[in-house]
């Protein structure tokens, strides 16, 4: 019935011969807001990075809307973990958001007035317009995360991958971010989020993938987000009291 946005077949990724992801088959339907959950070292970030071609798998393939990633780059936006960059880098909030437009520009061509306009709109959307000239180290953790989100929004993609966007942000920012993600889903976009806080899964997401080196389960939150899958994923007898 629905189109498949991301299809992962038999994906295996290893660091120094130790498999981090083992024979993953995964289909992400278009238009879902999906959480990837699993314990530390389960390969959540690795899965996203492999889909985006940042890591090279030792086996398996990934397609985006039925085609290889290389030909679909412009349909995909990525929000890396906040800690993956140096926030002391000499640049401003606006400039970081502008980086989101580089993909559509390609090599050599420089960003112009149109790109700046798009970046300003994205900044406004995440409520950071008044911080546009601020050096990025002068922003709080939550503000930095919003800048990253704005940078992804500016890419105007069909699929958004986010690696722990809620890590180290305050409650206000968390609400602001999740509202934007829900808006994206409403606009028909597919959003895939590496997520840690199991309590908020039913409230924030409509689709979930349990991952622990192997794929445990994937499907609608209301059908598969249960104690059985949580126990299988986290290895201990898991009882969550989730208010639905």
């Amino acid at each position, binding site marked *: 019935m629905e189109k498949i946005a991301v299809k992962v077949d038999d994906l295996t990724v290893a660091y*120094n011969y130790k498999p981090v992801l083992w024979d993953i088959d995964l289909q992400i339907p278009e238009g879902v807001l999906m959480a990837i959950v699993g314990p530390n070292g389960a390969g959540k970030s690795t899965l996203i*990075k492999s889909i*985006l*071609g*940042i890591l090279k798998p030792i086996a398996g393939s990934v397609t985006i809307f039925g085609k290889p990633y*290389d030909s679909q*780059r412009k349909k*995909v936006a*990525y929000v*890396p973990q906040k800690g*993956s*960059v*140096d926030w002391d*880098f*000499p*640049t*401003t909030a606006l400039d*970081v958001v502008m*980086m989101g437009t*580089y*993909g559509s*520009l*390609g*090599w*050599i061509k*420089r*960003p112009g007035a149109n790109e700046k306009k798009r970046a300003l709109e994205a900044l406004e959307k995440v409520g950071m317009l008044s911080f546009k000239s601020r*050096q990025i*180290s*002068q*922003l*709080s953790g939550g*503000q930095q995360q919003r800048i990253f989100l704005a*940078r992804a929004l500016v890419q105007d993609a069909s699929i958004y991958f986010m690696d722990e966007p809620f890590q180290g942000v*305050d409650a*206000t920012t968390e609400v602001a971010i999740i509202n934007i993600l829900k808006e994206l889903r409403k606009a028909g976009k597919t959003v895939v989020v590496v997520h840690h806080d199991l309590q908020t899964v039913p409230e924030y997401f409509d689709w979930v993938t349990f991952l622990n080196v192997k794929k445990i389960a994937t499907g609608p939150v209301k059908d598969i987000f249960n104690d059985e899958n949580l126990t299988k994923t986290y290895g201990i007898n898991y009882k969550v009291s989730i208010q639905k």
Partner: protein
Amino acid sequence: MTSAQFEIQLIASLVAIACAIPGTFLVLRKMAMISDAISHSILPGIVLGFFLTQDLNSPWLILLAAATGVLTVVLVEKIQQTKLVKEDTAIGLVFPALFSIGVILIAKFANDVHLDIDAVLLGELAFTPFDRIYYDGMDLGPKALLVIGVILFVTILLLLAFFKELKLSTFDAGLATSLGFSPIILHYGLMSVASVTTVGAFDAVGAILVVALMIAPAASAYLLTTDLKKMIALAATFGVFSAISGYWIAHFLDASIAGSMTTMLGIVFLAVYLFAPSKGLIAVLYREKQQRIEVYLITFLLHLKNHSEENERHVNHLNEHINWQKVRSKTVLNLALKNNMIRIDNNIVSLTKKGETFTSKAIDYIVTYEDGLIEDMKDDFFLFRG
């Protein structure tokens, strides 16, 4: 000023700019030490290049030497990837090995040519105007000037073409990959430019001092600006300033030109390190002191706000209540008075309206960390700046 003097300063300035550009990116990528490794390990490349071409002026020699520089980077990365040693150790293993091969090669086979180790290490700017290039009997200028001129021209072209890509891959290699800008290509592109520049600069300043020209101006500029373009421009400016002032110092002291230039680079960095407006040592210490005083002030105001009973607010007993020394209580009391935050009636201290508002606002901010609450106070208080 003679034309030779002018030419020496021009060469030194061009070398400084050519070094500042890749140097800025090396500093931002936390790869400053790689330039040290490159500068040493190009030596065997130069010697081998000379054996193959039998011509110290051949562009092939420059490219071959630069290739050794890139080889250094590859070797360091390969050793590091085994995870058996760390990056700094890998650097320390690779370049002395390559450098010593170069030293042996020179001593063994190149004793009779102009390739002595002193010149390689320190360069000799003073002689550069005498080594000239002629075409059809016409004087085209000093060889070093042409070499570094061409290298600088190409470096600037590459910088203009790939500025956006370099910035992105330096800041966020993951995003660069996912957008289709291969960080590996950019990385080796940058390493190639750094290597070629090092080889080109070696005639003028020698293989060792080129490291100072790559790192010191960029490190100084980093403390002064929050804009990458300005950082490159400032680094180039510092480089040129040190080159020219260093030349004249050497002239008056009758000392080594390259040595004086490097000393100037050190002095410039020291000055910036101490006096940079926001990141400099003095500014940081001043800000810390102010922040400490402001914390005391808020603590004091909060105490007044929390206690309505008069005995807690008596001027002479304040230090006992908040457990402060007399001097500090006095300083804070005066500061609060001066800012109209408190008033003193019959030796009893109480908050003014202004003090009340200020304290509530500060507390709201400290509890919630919501920046919007405090934006208007940031201009007056160091405490609330990042």
